[in-house]
């Protein structure tokens, strides 16, 4: 229950961190909030040769609106900063709603946005929201900079498209379509625990007809996923309770849940159907409210 020995490398700039990462050639881990990494070290599930601390790199924690009403979040921004950011609450209310479900205050005080994305836990809120909001993730290394769509970035459980020497430096959330309705619902056994299942949706209506529908699910597959078939079912349709139920069933058919100590696969399927129905109804209501 104590970590194996490692070298501690303090980085004062992104360049220093990138050079150090390259030097250790895959045998180093970046230390940001440490809220997922340090348990793995304490259990000795990980024994890296070095930890490269990026907490003191200046300017990497900014949360700001940029051109086109997009939101840019620096990798070192803490969950609590996003949770309480008025800019996030105003422009990305679905992200604001989801952040309250992330773990507990002491974890949100430390845990970072870049860390959550890089760790890619299938039951974490931030990767799911990145997928829902078509976020673009910036990864930098001494070799250059890449911009990756969230759906290309998230590959599987705890697995991303990041190369060994790359650092997530920021994530950009493009503006939501005008008049978009949204909703988010999560089921966990205890407030702040890992989700057993969660569903989020964004809907836009034009004259009562669905323009764009986005549905993201998490806790029920290798990684957070988009329910593309269910999104397709909604497109171009008017509100009917049966339509919402059909889309919820379709979302449920798209998942690959596991059975573990907290819930059976069947229960997770049941949850997704119920949560999807609620979330789609909620998003539709909000979209109608916007249109009125």
């Amino acid at each position: 229950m104590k970590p194996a020995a490692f070298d501690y490398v303090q980085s004062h700039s992104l360049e220093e961190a990138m050079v150090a990462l390259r030097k250790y050639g895959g045998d180093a881990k970046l230390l940001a909030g440490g809220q997922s990494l340090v348990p793995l070290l304490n259990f000795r599930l990980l024994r890296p040769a070095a930890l490269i601390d990026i907490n003191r790199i200046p300017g990497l924690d900014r949360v700001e609106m940029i051109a086109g009403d997009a939101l840019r979040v620096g990798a070192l921004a803490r969950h609590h900063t996003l949770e309480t950011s008025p800019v996030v609450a105003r422009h990305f209310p679905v992200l604001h709603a989801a952040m309250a479900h992330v773990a507990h205050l002491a974890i949100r005080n430390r845990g970072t946005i870049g860390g959550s994305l890089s760790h890619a836990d299938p039951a974490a809120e931030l990767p799911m929201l990145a997928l829902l909001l078509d976020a673009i993730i910036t990864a930098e290394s001494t070799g250059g900079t890449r911009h990756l769509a969230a759906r290309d970035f998230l590959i599987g459980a705890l697995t991303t498209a990041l190369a060994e020497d790359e650092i997530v430096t920021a994530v950009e959330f493009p503006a939501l379509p005008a008049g978009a309705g949204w909703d988010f619902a999560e089921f966990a056994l205890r407030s702040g625990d890992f989700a057993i299942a969660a569903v989020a949706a964004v809907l836009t209506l034009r004259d009562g007809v669905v323009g764009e529908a986005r549905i993201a699910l998490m806790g029920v597959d290798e990684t957070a996923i988009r329910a593309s078939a269910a999104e397709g079912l909604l497109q171009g349709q008017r509100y009917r309770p049966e339509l919402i139920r059909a889309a919820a069933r379709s979302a449920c058919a798209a998942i690959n849940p596991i059975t573990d100590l907290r819930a059976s696969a069947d229960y997770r399927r049941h949850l997704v159907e119920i949560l999807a129905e609620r979330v789609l109804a909620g998003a539709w209501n909000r979209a109608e409210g916007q249109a009125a």
Partner: protein
Amino acid sequence: MSDCHTIRVSVNGTSHECLVESRLLLVDFLRRDLALTGTHIGCEHGVCGACTILLDGDSVRACLTFAVQTDGCRIETVEGLGESDNLSPLQQAFRDHHALQCGFCTPGMLMTCIDMMKKYPLADDQAIREALSGNLCRCTGYVHIVDAVRAARDRPEESSP
């Protein structure tokens, strides 16, 4: 010899300069190197909240932080709150409402309460329970802990640490 670094930290207002091994957890540094054993070690993986302390004013898990990371930082532990014969208002509220049984979770509960009372309105018991959900009390004395937090919330002028 494993990787070591010199750190300077302020703990409950007292400055310390110490040589620490990189892998030394902050909670072990406080307990072993500084003999501040009020901060407890529970699960050692961030789940139970017993080791919660304030780092530059924010509640954090001392079992998920390395001592070496805290160079130049201000740390507050339960020892900084009050004395046995001169409890802080929050500690007094815990005593008044019988909010501790075995006391193991209490230091983490107190440090969490200070931060959550600062950051959230805690308008009702549900909000208090949610804010406390990261701290486990295995005596399951939550009702009295919620009572104590409610009382401290209603007397904000007295409940600063």
